[in-house]
C-alpha cells in the first residue's frame, strides 16, 4: 500500500509541471476569450458579462495551474489568498461598476441582437 502511495507521489512529481503549465495556459486562453468578448459585445452591460469570465474561470484555472507548479506549501497558501480575495471582491467590483452606470442613467440594450445592432429603447 505504501509502495502504491510512493509510486503515486513520484508520478505526481513528474506530471505536475506539465499539467500545471497546461492548466495555466487554458486559463490564460479563457482570459483572452473574455477580452475578445469585451471587444465584441455591443454595450457596456454585455461587456461586463464577458469580463466576468476573466474574473471567474480564467483566474481560477491560472491559479490552479500555478498551485500545481508550486514548489512549497507557502506558495499554495499565497495563491489561495489571491483566489479567495478575487472570489470575494470581483463580484463586488462588477456590481459597483454596473450600479454606478445604472444610477447615472446609462440605458442597456434590450432584446435580441443578431449581428445588426437594432436598438430597442426600454419602456420607461
Amino acid at each position, binding site marked *: 500500500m505504501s509502495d502504491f502511495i510512493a509510486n503515486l507521489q513520484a508520478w505526481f512529481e513528474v506530471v505536475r509541471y506539465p499539467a500545471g503549465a497546461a492548466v495555466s495556459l487554458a486559463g*490564460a486562453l479563457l482570459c483572452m476569450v473574455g477580452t475578445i468578448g469585451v471587444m465584441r459585445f455591443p454595450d457596456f452591460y454585455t461587456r461586463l458579462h464577458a469580463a466576468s469570465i476573466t474574473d471567474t474561470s480564467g*483566474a481560477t484555472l491560472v491559479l490552479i495551474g500555478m498551485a500545481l*507548479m508550486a514548489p512549497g506549501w507557502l506558495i499554495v497558501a499565497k495563491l489561495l489568498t489571491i483566489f479567495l480575495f478575487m472570489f470575494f471582491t470581483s463580484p463586488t467590483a462588477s456590481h*459597483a461598476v454596473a450600479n454606478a452606470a445604472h444610477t447615472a442613467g446609462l440605458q442597456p440594450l434590450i432584446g435580441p441582437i443578431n449581428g445588426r445592432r437594432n436598438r430597442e429603447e*426600454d*419602456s420607461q
Partner: protein
Amino acid sequence: MTAAALIAILLGMVLLLIRTLLGPTLYDRVLAVNSFGTKTVLALGLLGFVMGRPEFLDIAILYALINFVSTIAILKFFRYRSFQVPLTGRTGTGGQGGKRNV
C-alpha cells in the same frame, strides 16, 4: 508553456487596452481597467513561475488588494464627486435607478 500562458495574458491586456482607449463611456474604461488589473495579478504570478522565483506572489496579492480599492474609489468619486461620503448607512444601493421599469 508557462511563458505561452503569460504571453496569452499579455495579448489579452493589449485587447483591453484598446477597449480602454475606445471607451465609449466612462464605465467601459473603468471596467477595462479593472479587468486589466485582474490580468496584471495573474501575469505577475505567472512571471514568478516563468523566472523560477514564485516568491514574487506578494506583489500579486498587493495588486489584487489595490485594484479593488482603486476601482471602488473611482466609482465613489464619480457618484458623489467626493471621497468624504461614507459608504455605509445608506438606504438601498440602487438610488432612483431601481424604479426604472423594464
